[in-house]
């Protein structure tokens, strides 16, 4: 490999007098001052956070919440895949067992009796969303979670469902049902 010798020109007497750099410095600082100072430009680039908030981009990985389907029923079927995949073990699911209500929608055998996410442990990795076969848990746009105690930061099923809202975009079982009905009337070659 050949080396390239960078030519370093000696500074001229004018440059060594510091005057060009003084003028340059003055120009740059004045330009910024004029743009930012009130009564002049009044356009600081600072975002004053609690009053002004940034637009959360699409696909942002915020806090994971449970979602309801288009009829307002719990989507989660208590399969516990997210609990097993969760790297920091932030999710804790209590299955319904024999005595509790099994599910609040058709097409589902079960729903969790209790679903807890410890938001202090959660690392917002999104593995729970990825692994969920029912599309019942999504990382949403919440990034500012605060509480006054550790207990308060453990979100239960009721709270998670309320925060998550209805997710009508993906309607897995509705389409499954349509597909099943279509199958029945489809002309099948019986040879």
């Amino acid at each position, binding site marked *: 490999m050949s080396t390239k010798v960078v030519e370093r020109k000696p500074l001229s007497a004018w440059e060594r007098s510091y005057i060009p*750099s*003084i003028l340059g*410095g*003055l120009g*740059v*600082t004045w330009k*910024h*001052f004029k*743009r*930012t*100072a009130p009564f002049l430009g009044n356009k*600081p*680039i*600072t975002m*004053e956070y609690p009053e002004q908030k940034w637009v959360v981009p699409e696909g942002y990985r915020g806090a994971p919440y449970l979602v309801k389907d288009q009829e307002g029923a719990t989507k989660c079927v208590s399969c516990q895949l997210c609990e097993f995949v969760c790297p920091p073990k932030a999710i804790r699911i209590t299955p319904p067992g024999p005595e509790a209500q099994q599910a609040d929608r058709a097409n589902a055998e079960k729903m969790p009796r209790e679903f807890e996410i410890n938001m202090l442990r959660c690392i917002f990795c999104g593995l729970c969303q990825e692994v969920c076969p029912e599309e019942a848990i999504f990382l949403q746009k919440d990034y500012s979670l605060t509480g006054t105690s550790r207990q308060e930061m453990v979100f239960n099923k009721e709270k998670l469902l309320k925060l998550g809202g209805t997710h009508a975009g993906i309607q897995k079982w509705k389409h499954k049902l349509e597909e099943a009905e279509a199958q029945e009337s489809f002309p099948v070659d019986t040879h």
Partner: protein
Amino acid sequence: MDFLQNLDPSVQFVLFSIVKIAVVFGVTMSFVAYSVLVERKVSAWIQDRVGPNRTAPPAAQFIPILGPFLTRLGIFQPAADGLKFLLKEDFTPSYVRLAYFWLAPAIAVIPAFMTLAVIPFGSTLGNPGNKMVIADLDVGILYTFGIVSLGVYGIVLAGYAANSKYPFLGGIRSTAQMISYEIAMGMSVVSVFLLVGDLNLSKVIEYQAHGGWLVFKQPLAFVIFLVAAFAETNRLPFDLPESESELVGGYHTEYSSMKFALFFLGEYANMIASSAMMVTLFFGGWTLPFIGEPASGLLGGLLHIGIFVAKMVVFMVMFIWVRWMFPRFRYDQLMDLGWRRFIPLALANILVTALVVAFVNR
């Protein structure tokens, strides 16, 4: 006011002096507090930020329009800053040299205030016998240089007393820097006094009232004085004793609470003193090209003080502004600038001025 006139002249003198000292001290202290705010705000604006805009006493929000406006300007910030310094833990590391550790902040702050004594901040308030200067010394400028050199000891002692490497390095740098720039500073003023023919600062202003501002007659002396003033007050681009990016906090690394605040105070008081000095020596003090005679009434006297303060504020803003214009000088560049450029230039300036005074201005 009659009973004041009937008093013994010496009692009058003492009384007026005490009042002047109190007022100058109070004004300087509030100036220090608010120049910190101005520094924070101007720095913020130069860097496209907002600056302190939240601090306010609870009552401020009830004042319509003005309250939020002042809060946004950060008017209440200095009070919070001062309170913070008072209430913080005063931590003394176990390895310091205690006596010097306690002495250094005091030595840093006292000379800064003492230099203000000889600066004529106005003409009179109507009474011609009562000049608006705390001490109308005939050796004015010599006194100033004598006191200013003491200010070095505060920083050097702080560096030595802290017994740790960063303050020590800061102290070493400051010793070299302040001593070498004091020479250039002193020499630049010599040519001014060759022209004026008197060391008394009131006489310097009198000369400028009739003969025009000295900055036009001695521009080189002004430039040298200005740069040396930056070096003497440890301001960027010459803040090598502090240089927080390489020496943590320089000479005041080990200090906390009020002791640290005293160094802070000393630095800003020094800035105020050198601004006042530059205004007095080169920019006509309280005079303007069309206002030169000492005031005959209270109003005129206050106007003169106002002119002086306004000129000083311009220099203070310049001190703050320059901070963001340059990167810090390297140690050898600083020494090179001081010894190999400014001292020969100042000497040449003295020589030329002396020749002009001797042969032309007879």
